[in-house]
């Protein structure tokens, strides 16, 4: 007897291999989804009707047992489980243990040497870095809200868009299907870095859609500035800081905008799309001209639409940037009570 059956299942079955396969079937992994919707499952044909019935029956039993076990964890969205503790982080002033849970209203603090990793089935994973202070404000199936007073968190979110929300002193970071890092300085200034997907950062009328690989800063009393890629030129970034946060000198502001437009690469077009709301009406035409030179506008979108900052007209421009569209297929963001 050769090894064809062991190799690829062809040829006459090796009885011992077949017997061991059947024995070990109980250890096979399920292909359940991790809470990702719209996942279709491929079904492979079974070799014989009898085997199909046996497997179906076993599958129903396993599925029922698994569903009970899984539902117990899946539908409990009232607390985050601690998965990793380094040193002695504090939960409401007490040392947090490896087996601990983080519930709504609890304050979690880390010092210079401690950090915590937490997770919740169906929601994601959260890492609290050293020197951080975070409160879990709300924990439910519809909403997981946090307040990051200072320090840094790293989030990997698998919940639906706009379920995972982090308040900082200067903005609200709303997950749109992503992984990101959010850092808050002692003065409230925050820096968001998105590693996967998109984050909607907003405060009041200021909104920044931050794509993968980009960053956005928020300042006290102002809110989020236009996002940018960190590999943009130093001149671009310095000038953008003035455009975003310093309107004290109109001439300097206008000069900074000229530098931003001049230094912008095609890759920076998304930054320019975020600028229409942040510059004076008379400057929007300049932003349009540069943006159109980098990425031609969709058919029918005119300079006047840009000057009027018409979101219905400008929205399709996102599609042409080659970075996807953050809101495609997503529901509208919730209203945030300030």
């Amino acid at each position, binding site marked *: 007897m*050769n090894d064809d059956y062991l190799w690829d299942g062809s040829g006459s079955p090796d009885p011992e291999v077949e017997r061991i396969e059947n024995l070990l079937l109980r250890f096979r992994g399920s292909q359940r989804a991790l809470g990702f919707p719209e996942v279709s499952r491929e079904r492979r044909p079974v070799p014989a009707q009898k085997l199909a019935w046996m497997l179906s029956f076993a599958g129903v039993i396993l599925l029922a047992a698994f569903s009970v076990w899984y539902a117990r964890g899946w539908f409990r969205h009232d607390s985050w489980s601690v998965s990793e503790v380094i040193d002695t982080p504090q939960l409401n002033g007490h040392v947090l243990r490896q087996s601990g849970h983080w519930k709504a209203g609890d304050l979690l603090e880390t010092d210079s040497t401690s950090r915590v990793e937490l997770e919740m089935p169906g929601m994601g994973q959260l890492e609290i870095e050293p020197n951080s202070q975070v409160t879990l404000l709300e924990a439910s199936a519809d909403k997981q809200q946090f307040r990051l007073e200072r320090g840094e968190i790293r989030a990997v979110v698998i919940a639906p868009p706009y379920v995972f929300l982090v308040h900082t002193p200067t903005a609200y970071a709303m997950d749109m299907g992503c992984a990101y890092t959010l850092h808050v300085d002692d003065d409230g200034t925050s820096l968001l870095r998105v590693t996967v997907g998109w984050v909607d950062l907003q405060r009041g009328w200021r909104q920044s859609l931050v794509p993968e690989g980009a960053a956005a800063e928020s300042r006290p009393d102002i809110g989020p500035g236009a996002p940018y890629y960190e590999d943009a030129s130093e001149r671009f970034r310095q000038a953008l800081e003035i455009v975003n946060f310093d309107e004290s000198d109109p001439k300097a502001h206008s000069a900074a905008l000229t530098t931003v437009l001049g230094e912008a690469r095609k890759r920076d077009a998304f930054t320019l799309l975020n600028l229409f709301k942040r510059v004076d009406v008379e400057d929007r035409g300049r932003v349009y001209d540069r943006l159109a030179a980098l990425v031609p506008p969709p058919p029918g979108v005119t300079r006047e639409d840009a000057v009027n900052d018409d979101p219905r007209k400008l929205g399709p421009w996102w599609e042409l940037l080659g970075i996807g569209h953050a809101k495609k297929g997503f529901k509208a963001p919730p209203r945030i009570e300030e």
Partner: protein
Amino acid sequence: MEARLDGNLPIREAAVPEDPTVENTSEDAQLIAAARDGDRSAFGKLYERHTRMVHGVLLAHVPFAEVDDLVHDVFLVALRKLGSLREPGAFAGWLITIARNRATDFHRKPRASEELPAEIGTTDPEEYEARAALEAIRSLPEAYRETLVLRLVEGMKGPEIAARTGLTPASVRVNLHRGMKQLREKLGRERP
């Protein structure tokens, strides 16, 4: 070019036909691009395409009761670090590396409990035999362990294992053959 297994079973390096069970890495690349754009259903599909492989790699190293949680961990890490993956075609190998690292981490941490030996906790002879077979596979040399688990437990075929793990088909075939030979010897010796 002909290679030989244990001196008696000839195989041909280039004679492996395309196997329909081997999924195209370009599909992975498309799904990865979509997942990076925030399409969670695309990441869900990646999960479904590769979960058996990750499950098998972990099962070769850690107790069965821990595997599901670690599979979950591996995909969370993958989602978090997806942006750092430079070559989408290497996704499967990258997942295997994450899975092996998580298995290593698992053994580094002190634990309150250990997996019971096969003879404890069951009176069902078949259950006992299944546990003993899994233990026997885990006691095999590293090179055979994962390959045998992927084939015998997860039901993956040799060509699929080769495509996913990055091993050559000939290496997988050698590992299966030699691993099965050693497994037969162990089970023959250890069967009650």
